């Protein structure tokens, strides 16, 4: 930098670039930080778990160390009947979502309630915990917060899993991992646009719907329907099973890939799945040599397909 001009130039550069970083990083980040989480935002992060992408617990993105979401009507501790409640069960060792690790990101009021009557600071990852979403009226405004039911009601993870049935247990967190890993978001968006998607794809999200969620997987190229509210458009598990196994069974013009490989080796009854045989029969069906397509196997409870369907049907 022998030249005086360059000394000035470098300082100017620092100033210009620094100002631009201040405006585009500091200002938005501090603005977004003031947003309080909505109930949707709480439900999302509690059902997804800490991270939906690569993490220590789950380096190969197999859906390890994720919470289970259960719908219960019986108190796990006392066995007494209760109002239908959705509980998020974190078995011991499953990392808590970001809102519990760093309550600050929930925003002021939800944070105070979650820490106060929600007792979330008493939750311990090594022990595991059961969470529920509650609301409270604060000066005329309904504020959602997280309750650590392990501390407030003595619900322990094992007991909560016992009062839930197979039908009412959803592996949404694992399903989200599948959604990210399989790149569904390269075709589908999770973000109805504010300007025109209301009627077809449903209401666009609110500012506080995402606090604590990572990654949001909004998607940018839409080549397929938005999925934010797909569970309320289409709640048929049978349709989903056929559609994921081979989309062209239910929608001949679809360009969606087949996800039969998420079925794993055995079906729900424990019988091995004969993929080659299935494809050969399907080709006959396409060639008009069969009237009906071959039967689609039901995915096993611990299969990746099962979790993915849980995730999709719970997008409401």
């Amino acid at each position, binding site marked *: 930098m022998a*030249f005086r001009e360059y000394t000035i130039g470098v300082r*100017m*550069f620092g100033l*210009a*670039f620094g100002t*631009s*970083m201040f*405006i*585009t*990083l500091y*200002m*938005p*980040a501090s*603005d*977004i930080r003031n947003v309080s989480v909505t109930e949707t935002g709480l439900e999302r992060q509690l059902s997804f778990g800490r991270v939906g*992408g*690569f993490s220590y617990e789950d380096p*190969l*993105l197999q859906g390890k160390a994720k919470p289970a979401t259960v719908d219960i009507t019986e108190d796990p501790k006392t066995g007494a009947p209760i109002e239908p409640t959705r509980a998020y069960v974190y078995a011991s060792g499953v990392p808590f979502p970001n809102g519990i690790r*760093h309550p600050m990101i929930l925003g002021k009021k939800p944070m105070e309630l979650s820490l106060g009557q929600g007792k979330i600071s008493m939750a311990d990852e090594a022990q595991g915990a059961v969470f529920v979403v509650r609301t409270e009226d604060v000066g005329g405004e309904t504020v959602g917060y997280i309750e650590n039911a392990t501390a407030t009601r003595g619900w322990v993870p094992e007991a909560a899993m016992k009062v839930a049935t197979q039908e009412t247990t959803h592996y949404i967190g694992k399903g989200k991992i599948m959604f*990210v*890993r*399989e*790149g*569904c*978001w*390269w*075709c589908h968006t999770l973000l109805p*646009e*504010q*300007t*025109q998607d209301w009627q077809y794809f449903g209401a*666009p*999200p609110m*500012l506080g*719907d*995402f*606090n604590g*969620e*990572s*990654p*949001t*997987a*909004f*998607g*940018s*190229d*839409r*080549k*397929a*329907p938005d999925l934010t509210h797909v569970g309320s458009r289409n709640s048929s598990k049978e349709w989903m099973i056929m559609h994921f196994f081979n*989309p*062209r069974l239910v929608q001949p*013009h*679809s*360009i*969606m*890939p*087949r996800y039969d*490989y998420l079925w794993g080796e055995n079906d729900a009854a424990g019988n091995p799945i004969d993929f080659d045989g299935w494809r050969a029969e399907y080709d006959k069906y396409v060639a008009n040599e069969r009237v009906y397509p071959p039967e689609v196997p039901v995915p096993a409870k611990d299969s990746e397909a099962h979790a993915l369907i849980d995730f999709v049907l719970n997008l409401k």
Partner: protein
Amino acid sequence: MFKYLFAKEEDIPAGSAAVFFGFSSILWFIVGTGLGSFNAAKLAFPDFVTGIEMLSFGHMRQVHVLAVILGWISMAFAMAMMYITPALGNTKLWSEKLGVWNCLIWNIGLALGLTLLWFGITSGREYSDMIWPIDLALIFGILLPLAVNVWMTIKTRRTQGIYTTNWFFGAATFMVLIVFSVGNSPEFFQLTGLTEAYLTWWFAHNVLGLWITPVAAAISYYIVPKVTGNPLYSHRIGHLHFWSVVVFYSTPAAHHLMSAPLPEWLKSFASVEGVLILVPAIAFVSNLLLTMSGKWKMFVENVEIKFTITGVLMAIPLNMQGGFQQTRAINWYIHGTGWIVAHAHLALLGFSTFLEAAAVYYGLQTLLRRKLYSLALANFHFWMLLVGFTTYWVSMTIAGLIQGAGKIYEVPYIDVVIAEHPYMIARWVGGTMVFLGNCVWLYNMWMTLRAGTLIPAGRLPHELAYER
């Protein structure tokens, strides 16, 4: 290459690192466009190679994108920096050895990162898909050594002033380090929600705006005056270009999320700044086109100028699209459609690729001191790229407009998918032409290395283009 890794600095011939980078970049170009063509085939014919996890669209798309950005484009940049920076400083590369290591680690790191992505091991954020250990490797093992080499070469120059190209190289290598570090911070620090979504697009925007666009432009600031023999039309306009890139191009990140629930002030601000991107764009295009004055016949006769000026001309529609499509008035129609895919390829496959191809053509001939093996094959490559790209761009733009119409008139989605089908096929055909053209290019450059006519001292490669 390996014999130079532990050789003494004096024993490594000048330009080795650039040559390695040049050939690596062509190889990655072939890999990247091959993957692109494969993906395009899947979008046209969904049952083409089906039911295999590793070969499904969702596993391959991001591999294509990052292979072309970090393999082809960025390695071609590294090549250009390693021969242009010293040439403009009338000196040698600061450390040829560091350059050779840089190239080796880059190839290994990128291959590893892409393999992991291919297995689906991703952070789940577009463009910053790589997981954080790979991000750190990219920052410290790849970008930082490159930057140090460029900065030190500029510092040890033997000219008094610094030419435009080198301002851009010096500043862009600095900015890309910041962009990579900040853009991947959601993963290091577990930032979540909208902050994360915003930072994802902050990264994506700034990688384009502060790395790809300025470095590509900087290359043409070298190639055009060098090959035509005309001095740069105006250094003042060069200043305008440089400073407006720093000020305007670094701010509109939020325009990628116009329909997301971000704070309104941020979207409006980004949108206004986005239109101001036209300032550097117009400065750049006019400066180079005016530099051509009196030498326009070279646009037809000379391969490097043909590539460069085609790229520069493509910057006109590119920036017209870019400047206006992000305003609210237009964005609601084309957001998230194939129009954007067409625009992305106009930027990277049109504008930027043509400029880098010129740099690689010119650099390899100069460094190897060998004349291009076949001018006819080079022209064939040019036309394959141009026709292939144009087919791609036109078909995806039409597909995007169909999607936009489908979106606002709330047509059942499957009808949009059916209507797009012919354009998906056209895109695949166009993209495959690009891929095939590149295979020819590799052959041509390899034969140049093996059998190109030696260039006598004191002559420039393009002067001999038509001599036997």
